[in-house]
């Protein structure tokens, strides 16, 4: 059972709600993924508009947990204010904290991230920080009050999959008891299985599902891969070796010459 800030969850998939072809496909993809946590954002409302209400009614009808994000924020002040506004609207103290440091790579500004994480944790938020795979930053985030980490495995939306296996192994090995969710960069189910086989606790997906040819089928495929990787991690995998080892017993084989 996955436990995030004292909330127990059966599913190890978190799903973003952006970029789907239609609201109906979004809803079906959420169901197919089996997720119990969906991410949402806050954006400017148009005068007289009610688009926010329509979207929020759909999401609330699912009965899942909601993880608001601070996507698009580039400073501590922006991220903290967005988190406060999210708590006011969504009535949750969970926040996916993003403080972007580079427009092209969407790489987190880890210095601002740690500062914002400390401010928000002190203010009672349960912070889910979108961070890099840097071990030292991870330690600083934990010191700042985070009890969950969300390292990337590649840039957001890149679909490159895990780029630095050494860094990911190092993170997992150094903080074996901290729930860690791979957020960003996953492109296909095999990527998800790979990071789950490393012992990560969950994954957060959006683009890989939303932009797939069939988002609903892809959501289901990712869910299976995540379960497979998680079970494999606990089942004890063979270490690779350079020489062949016969699987069929050698003793008792017939000799025909």
């Amino acid at each position, binding site marked *: 059972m996955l436990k995030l800030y004292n909330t127990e969850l059966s599913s190890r998939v978190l799903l973003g709600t952006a970029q789907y072809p239609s609201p109906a496909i979004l809803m079906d993809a959420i169901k197919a993924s089996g997720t119990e946590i969906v991410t949402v954002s806050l954006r*400017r409302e148009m005068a007289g508009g009610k688009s926010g209400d329509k979207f*929020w009614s759909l999401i609330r009808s699912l009965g899942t947990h909601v993880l608001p994000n601070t996507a698009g924020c580039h400073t501590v002040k922006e991220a903290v204010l967005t988190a406060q*506004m999210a708590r006011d*609207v969504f009535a949750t103290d969970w926040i996916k904290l993003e403080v972007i440091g580079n427009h092209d790579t969407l790489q987190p500004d880890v210095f601002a991230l740690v500062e914002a994480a400390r401010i928000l944790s002190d203010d009672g938020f349960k912070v889910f920080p979108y961070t890099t795979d840097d071990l030292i930053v991870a330690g600083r985030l934990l010191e700042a009050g985070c009890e969950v980490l969300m390292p990337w495995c590649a840039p957001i939306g890149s679909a490159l999959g895990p780029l630095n296996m050494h860094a990911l192994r190092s993170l997992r090995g150094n903080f074996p008891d901290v729930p860690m969710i791979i957020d960003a960069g996953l492109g296909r189910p095999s990527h998800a299985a790979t990071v789950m086989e490393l012992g990560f606790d969950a994954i957060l997906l959006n683009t890989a599902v939303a932009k797939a040819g069939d988002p609903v089928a892809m959501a289901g495929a990712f869910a299976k891969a995540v379960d497979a990787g998680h079970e494999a991690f606990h089942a004890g995998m063979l270490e690779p070796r350079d020489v062949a080892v016969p699987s069929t017993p050698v003793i008792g084989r017939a000799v025909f010459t």
Partner: protein
Amino acid sequence: MKLLVNGEPHDVSAQSLDALLAELEFEGEWLATALNGELVRSPERQNCRLDEGDRVEILTPRQGG
């Protein structure tokens, strides 16, 4: 009174944030508001006075990753 609402200039007669939402027909139930970079919670809007040149942000739930 001239204000900046979601980055757009508006000339309004509203004196409070609550009245501003009504005047500009922000009818959604699920709104988050900020005045000059500070959160204004829903129950505080009625007593939140506006001044010339104030910057108001009105946000609502949207899709996100």
